[in-house]
């Protein structure tokens, strides 16, 4: 892909992000931060490439360390988001009392 194609994806994604995030309800702003945190760890893609590549021992170990850090974030981020979202409940039926 040439630079301008990538730039196009980036600019369009910024607009998508803008509209999608404004539609997030304020009550879910904390889960929003937790989940954006988890997905920004997609940087693990770079870490995996570095750890799989031959040619630089230093690069490989930096990559592996980055894989550990990004994995903490991915698993921790999605799990904690899940835990939070499961707590949001509607009013129970008034029949209770």
């Amino acid at each position, binding site marked *: 892909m040439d630079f301008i194609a990538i730039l196009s994806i*980036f600019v369009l994604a*910024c607009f998508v992000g803008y509209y999608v995030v404004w539609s997030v309800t304020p009550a879910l702003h904390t889960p929003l931060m937790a989940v954006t945190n988890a997905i920004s760890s997609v940087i693990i893609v770079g870490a995996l490439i*570095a750890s799989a590549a031959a*040619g630089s021992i230093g690069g490989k170990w930096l*990559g592996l360390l980055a894989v550990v850090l990004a994995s903490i974030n991915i698993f*921790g*981020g999605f799990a904690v988001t899940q835990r939070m979202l499961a707590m949001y409940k509607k009013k129970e039926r008034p029949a209770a009392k």
Partner: protein
Amino acid sequence: MPHAVNPWVAFAYLVAGVCFILALRGLSSPTTSQRGNRFGMIGMGIAVLTTLVTHVPTITVLVEGYDYAALLSAIDTVAVFEIVAAIAIGAAIGLTTARRIAMTAMPQLVAAFHSLVGLAAVLVAAAAYLNPVAFGIALPVLTPDGAVALINPVSRIEMGLGVAIGAITFSGSVIAFLKLNGNMGGAPILLPARHVINLGVLAAIVVLVAYFTLDQSPWVFWTITALSFAIGFLLIVPIGGADMPVVVSMLNSYSGWAAAAMGFTLHNSAMIITGALVGSSGAILSYIMCRAMNRSFVSVIAGGFGAEAGGGGASAAKTDRPWKRGSAEDAAFLMSQAEQVIIVPGYGMAVAQAQHVLREMADKLKAEGVRVKYAIHPVAGRMPGHMNVLLAEANVPYDEVFELEDINSEFAQTDVAFVIGANDVTNPAAKTDKTSPIYGMPVLDVEKAKTVLFVKRSMGGVGYAGVDNDVFYRDNTMMLLADAKKMVEEIVKALD
């Protein structure tokens, strides 16, 4: 030569990117949010698997047979094991943390997670710098000194920006974590001439990133890294505790831009889409937080709020004004007689961990036929949506919880406003007093309720902004001076 990308691989990353968009889209309502989160997980699964399958570590082995010898490429099982182990270690740490963390500690956890993204970005950028050929961003060039991998100039800018933003995210988030976790005082720490130092360091980083395109020597790369770590630290240290919602959102945004910069380096659409989403998400949250405090982003980042205010003859005189003190029994009586009670929680509720007993109190009141609602100010707490999560944890139904603009007109028809652990966000000076540091900030009109019950630890302390709150001295206000949790427990007892 770089990036002879298999279209199916590119397509897989695109699908992952779309999954991430759907993950955020799901958060538009609590009912669709869990499905959204699953989309996020699917997207991440696709991205990771695609990378694993297309980047299998290989080694060249010499195979010697009876009458032949050949160099063959084989899967490097040791390297595969190392990668799987790294993922497993991360998964174990991440899942345990996510399961054990207390909901009140969520701001710290988010800050800690941001720091990890930042550090991972730095490490990936460093790995790409050390081994650019593996990332397809360099051409081996023969020079008199031997073969040198010459990194593409555009990639150098992307890499330089990636490492700089990543490092700022890391050190900034570490400071935010220490402040939120209480390891470091929440008060702003002001260095002399800090604006000059900060601008100087930032300018140096920009110049070095530009210079990096001309000279790819290690000192340039590592100096950019070191300066960026320093500026992250310098930027966050002077910012006080209650401005943390803006800081946390801003760092959230930075972690996204760091991922996007690395996505440019790797020509990876999943990373670019994610980076753009996260970057704009954090930016929008910062904007919402700033608007809720009526402060400009620049003034928050410049830091030191509250340090310059304070003092002033007016605030000293105010402490002598008469105020009324109430007991738990008074509060219980007033609320049980009310038709509608609006509860206004703030950071103090989180500190006292009073959300569970607060819900108990609300249940008792509801049993007596009182309508109970919760009013949340956007900057209540230490991160966006902090109060909502705590109330959800205490099993408060989310349809009883309202945002400022949806409930503010109701205070006038409300019998009791119950303020617990909030202060500045209820201060009417923001509406009337042009000299007040919080003038113009949207506030909850608690004073319009028939009675205001104000739970506060003591009369001495002022809110973060360092300004006195007129609500304390009003005729319709009753101060309940005690620890938030203890006071609510006593009210619950008195309601029996």
